[in-house]
């Protein structure tokens, strides 16, 4: 009887059913889309972070940024009178390549790696040194009679800064170099990279001039395994080419060289700029963070979660949009749908006062009537939920059909004071293009069904409560 009455009521009151179901459908569709999008954005963020920090890095330790000391102005080229060769036309040809710690990437004592490794809950740790190699290539006006030193501070983040002055012309070219520990194996920026050609760095490479290149960089520079690359005026042999984990993702650095060589060539003996840490257990990461902070009070300890906030670019805009606007919008629409369901159910009960009074007068128990009202609104909401699932699926398909590409750049360091001449920002981090893919997970489906059930039950319970309070004598009312 319950089922038949319910079916008849729903088909007999199509308009109310349609309104409630439509409102629920829109709300639930929106919830599904927003949920799926934010899952997609989270995946993209994780992907972007992986390409910077490597798979399996749970925590990073960096130097706590401090304002740059006076006079610390990035790599500097100093040419003494003896440098270069006379070109015979009044200028001096100069070619110099220098390795220095990147701006904003402060270094600290490599002993920290040992300290980290000694902590409980640390499975592996590896120190890296983020550097920038600057190449100056060109002609300077001859010193002539004026003795002294020409100074050119480089100001461009990337590419060539071409400058010409008083008959001289030169190129400044920079790329990022990272000193990595060949012993570290599974943790660190190279851990996530896939080897495309040659081999990756090994422990036996220590002390040798061996380099591994990022494939994107190798492509633009037209370098292949076996070629030579000049870093800090030294010839390095390209031993391998690696690519980031995502198809378009770059790795953390343009070039990788053994840590000890990097320290020596950049004059940073015994220093590192980041320690990559993998926790023994992924659910004790916040504890590990506390432990590391206690052990290394001078340093900054970041978890993946902390690092997610360092991702910038359109990905972070999308993430912000989805998490703020999307969440609020879907919450608001859901609230409106719930309210509509509740109001319509309650007004339906008022309209059916005599009907429910009559049922009571002929012996229906309160519970049966509450069940009837709740059942009706539950089914209305479930119809809405099913329709909402379709709306949501359509939305997800649409997003995935367009698959918008988002850029993400993550800075490997906690942001130091930005700017300086030319606004040279540390580019140890990678810029990654991430294709947004909105996944459809069982959790999302559950959310849809859950929201529909919750809305239907809420409306049903409130409406049923009202119906339960009706007196059976309401059956005798003269108005329907």
């Amino acid at each position, binding site marked *: *009887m319950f089922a038949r009455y319910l079916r008849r*009521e729903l088909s007999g009151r199509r308009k109310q059913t349609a309104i409630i179901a439509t409102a629920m459908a829109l709300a639930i569709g929106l919830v599904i889309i927003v949920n799926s999008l934010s899952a997609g954005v989270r995946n993209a963020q994780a992907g972007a972070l992986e390409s910077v920090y490597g798979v399996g890095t749970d925590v990073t330790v960096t130097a706590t940024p401090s304002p740059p000391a006076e006079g610390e102005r990035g790599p500097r080229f100093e040419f003494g009178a003896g440098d270069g060769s006379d070109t015979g036309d009044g200028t001096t040809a100069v070619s110099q390549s220098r390795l220095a710690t990147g701006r904003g990437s402060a270094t600290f004592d490599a002993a920290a790696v040992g300290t980290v490794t000694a902590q409980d809950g640390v499975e592996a740790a590896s120190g890296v040194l983020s550097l920038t190699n600057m190449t100056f290539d060109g002609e300077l006006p001859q010193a002539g009679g004026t003795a002294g030193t020409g100074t050119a501070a480089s100001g461009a983040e990337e590419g060539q800064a071409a400058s010409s002055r008083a008959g001289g012309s030169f190129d400044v070219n920079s790329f990022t170099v990272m000193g990595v520990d060949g012993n570290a194996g599974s943790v660190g920026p190279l851990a996530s990279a896939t080897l495309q050609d040659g081999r990756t760095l090994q422990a036996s490479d220590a002390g040798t001039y061996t380099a591994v290149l990022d494939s994107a960089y190798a492509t633009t520079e037209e370098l292949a395994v076996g070629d030579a690359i000049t870093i800090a005026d030294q010839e390095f042999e390209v031993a391998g080419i690696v690519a980031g984990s995502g198809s378009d993702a770059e790795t953390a650095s343009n070039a990788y060289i053994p840590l000890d060589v990097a320290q020596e060539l950049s004059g940073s003996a015994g220093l590192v700029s980041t320690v990559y840490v993998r926790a023994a257990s992924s659910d004790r990461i916040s504890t590990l963070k506390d432990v590391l902070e206690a052990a290394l009070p001078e340093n900054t300890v970041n978890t993946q979660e902390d690092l997610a906030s360092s991702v910038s670019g359109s990905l972070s805009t999308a993430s912000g949009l989805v998490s703020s606007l999307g969440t609020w919008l879907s919450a608001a629409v859901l609230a409106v749908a719930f309210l509509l369901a509740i109001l319509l159910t309650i007004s339906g009960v008022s309209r059916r006062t005599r009907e429910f009074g009559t049922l009571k007068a*002929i012996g229906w128990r309160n519970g049966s009537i509450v069940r009837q009202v709740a059942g009706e609104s539950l089914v209305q909401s479930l119809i809405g939920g099913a329709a909402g699932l379709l709306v949501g699926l359509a939305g997800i398909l649409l997003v995935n059909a367009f698959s918008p590409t988002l850029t993400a750049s993550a800075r490997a360091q906690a942001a130091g004071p930005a700017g300086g001449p030319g606004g040279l920002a540390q580019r140890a981090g990678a810029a990654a293009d991430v294709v947004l893919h909105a996944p459809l997970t069982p959790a999302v489906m559950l959310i849809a069904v859950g929201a529909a059930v919750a809305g239907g039950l809420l409306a049903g319970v409130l409406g049923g409560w009202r119906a339960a309070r009706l007196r059976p*004598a309401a059956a005798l009312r003269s108005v329907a």
Partner: protein
Amino acid sequence: MAEQATTHATTVPDPVAAPGTAPLAPAAEPVPMFRLTGVEKVYTQKNRTVHALRSVDLTIPAGQLVAIQGSTGGGKSTLLQMLGALDRPTAGTVMLAGQETSRLGDRDLARIRARDIGFVFQHYNLIPTLTAQENVEMGLAPLGVAAGERASRAAAALASVGLEDRASHLPGELSGGQQQRVAIARALAKRPKVLLADEPTGNLDEATRDDIVGLLEGLWRAGLTIIMVTHDSAVARRAQRRLRINAGRVTEAA
């Protein structure tokens, strides 16, 4: 013989199984269908109180056809609510077939309404989205009758009011008289102890009114106790006993 009469009065007459059987002479009953003693009903609304029933003492033996008349607002419907276990009196006792209903809780009252009371309303009060057959079955739903039996009993009740060919019609597709017949079938399907009707002909034209009154008379002759409120003297005249209620006081009319 006395044994038989007692049995008849307290068991449910079956108008469905035996329509139009010979009238039974009402015997003096040791247990009346209703016995009301000192019943008061006061409605309190904010600061206003209405004394709808005042010290009503009333005995209605089983098998009677009683008409209740009175001016509007006199308390007719209120009295019917006391009889039909729709509400409890403010004071006094109501006994239905020997059981006091005036002290029962909501659940027990609902059970009594489901089992023992057939109610017919002025506005028929059918559920508009359900067919005649389904409306009748609604009266059996709270009794937990199995679906198959429910359908056959409802069909038989519809047949007993002459509507077997309208079983699948919605109330909107039926005339007022037919709707009231469906409502009577709904009340009869449970085989109640008593049928209570509040202005059952109030919305009907004269011919249809006579039709419905004839139907009720037939049920009464089959042994059913019927108490109906009516404004209509022509209807009241056909009753076995007439009561008047004015300003909450019940009197026997000549």
